[in-house]
């Protein structure tokens, strides 16, 4: 299935076709637009946090007299139990939630690519051992692993991100390994090898770039998974801790009031939903645009 790719790469200027297909996918473009907007919000509010830009509202400001107010002109999405403006907190939570997604994926992709590349390229006993390690990790109940690490290290933002990343790399490793196993035997890699190029060069110049497209799609799909995992952890009270706002812990803090203040969980939940959906659709659009066969009708 992947064999023809190397030849297609050279013959038909795939970049153009990829772009053409991508741009013609309206749903995909919509998803990208949503992601771009989220990106702008995240960067803007991260800058605010750093103090580079000033902004009148403080997400941690507690105005107790204004607690649990329903959405209104003053508070578009209402206030929480400490009188904090939900909309402001959600805006501030954007970069945290996205950071959780991106950094966790970065961690898991890095480990996954390294392990997968070594296993797939070398094969033999190293492959065998690494794949058994993957099997072993898959044997652990993910939730317990996360809970334990968070309990030991404390539920700081970084710890939560790293833990989510650490349990999520096995899929990537398998994917990369499979790509490497096929590409290793392809003609141009053999050619490179007979030319006496070093292993490092072969891996990084010849194999990895060709193995990346599916990995990239997997990464895009991994981001919402990490965001959803953080939300689930927050729900159980072991996610990122306040006052640091994430969409997940806004919901977690609000769940007690769910029957009296619906806005506390409806809006952050929608935010997670829309973001995750945008990532999934964007990933799908990328995948479809990169496909070589299916679309040949």
């Amino acid at each position, binding site marked *: 299935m992947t064999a023809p790719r190397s030849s297609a790469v050279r013959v038909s200027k795939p970049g153009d076709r990829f772009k053409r297909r991508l741009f013609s996918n309206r749903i995909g473009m919509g998803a990208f637009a949503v992601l771009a907007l989220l990106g702008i919000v995240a960067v803007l509010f991260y800058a605010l946090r750093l103090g580079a830009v000033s902004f009148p509202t403080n997400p941690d400001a507690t105005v107790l007299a204004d607690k649990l107010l329903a959405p209104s002109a003053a508070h578009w999405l209402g206030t929480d139990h400490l009188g904090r403006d939900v909309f402001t907190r959600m805006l501030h939570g954007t970069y945290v939630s996205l950071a959780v997604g991106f950094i966790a994926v970065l961690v898991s992709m890095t480990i996954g690519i390294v392990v997968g590349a070594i296993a797939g390229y070398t094969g033999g006993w190293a492959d065998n051992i690494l794949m058994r390690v993957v099997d072993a990790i898959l*044997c652990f109940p993910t939730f317990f692993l996360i809970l334990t690490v968070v309990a030991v290290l404390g539920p700081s933002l970084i710890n939560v991100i790293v833990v989510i990343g650490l349990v999520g790399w096995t899929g990537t490793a398998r994917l990369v390994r499979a790509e490497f196993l096929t590409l290793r035997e392809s003609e141009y890699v053999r050619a490179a090898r007979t030319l006496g190029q070093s292993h490092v060069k072969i891996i990084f110049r010849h194999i990895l770039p060709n193995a990346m497209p599916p990995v990239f799609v997997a990464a895009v799909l991994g981001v919402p998974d990490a965001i*959803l995992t953080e939300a689930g952890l927050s729900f159980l009270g072991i996610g990122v801790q306040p006052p640091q706002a994430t969409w997940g812990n806004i919901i977690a803090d609000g769940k007690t009031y769910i029957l009296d203040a619906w806005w506390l969980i409806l809006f952050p939940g929608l935010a997670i939903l829309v973001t995750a*959906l945008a990532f999934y659709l964007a990933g799908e659009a990328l995948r479809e645009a990169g496909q070589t066969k299916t679309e040949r009708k």
Partner: protein
Amino acid sequence: MIAFIIRRLLISFGLLFVVSLISFFIITLTPGSPYPWGDLNPRISQTTKDAYKKKFHLDEPLHRQYVLIMGDLFTGKLVSNKDERPVLPKIAERLPATLLLNLASILLVYGFGIPLGIYAASKLGRAPDTAITLAAFTFIALPGFWLAYLVVIGLVKYAEVPLLGLSTFGAAFSGPVQAVLDRVWHLAVPAVVMAVGGIAVQSRFIRATMAESLGEDYIRTARAKGLPDTLVLYKHALRNSVRPLVTGIGFLLPALLGGSVIIESIFAYPGMGRLGYEAVMERDYPILVTLNFVVAALVLAGNLLADVLYAAVDPRVRLQ
């Protein structure tokens, strides 16, 4: 084939040993004590504490503890730290409800996922396909607890239908039919909430495998020959999806015993997820060690089963 299975079994046992060892150390190194009376209780005298430690071998070095706890596990003598009940019956009493919920949810996943996927594939690129795609991704993107709350609140508060627990509480039913339907209802709602994401994934999967084969030359040939569309769809295209579907059965093995803490908590459903979660929170080492062991064993068995099934349905694959 036999040789392959034997070799894999040996490797699996090795892995199981390593996994149980690592999980035991992770569990025991987690801060907190396994005492049934909690951590902040000076009313317990040192003598009592020592007696308790001795009883559960907590005064031994860790490697000895591991040997003793595994020994007890295999001889069935392992008891919970908290109420001293044997571990196996404690886990077994959760089985019926857990199996029922997981089976119901798996039934829903396949029952709805497959037809939706086929339907989407038959309308590839057209409006129904797009709608199903969008809906599927929306359901995958839904945070599980959020959906669960929406369902519970919607049904209980606004539709005024009881749905917490295994059956309506304190109700004097008029007959067995009403009682059974009540039981089915209490099973169905959490099963649907659990299955929603799976249905979406399953439909995507069927659609993708079918779409792939619909692009193949032999399908185009079949179509060109004038075979009716439904025949092409169900006889030829679907066949391509059968193989991964069958293989997938292997991976269902651990899923049968699993459970979601979140769903079980919100629906007050007495399943395996809560047992594990509560054991983690209370540091009930024997329960955790056993659960981890069982889950790891099932994952490994599931992997093996998947490989064997894969070979069974695809003659081209030879296990070595």
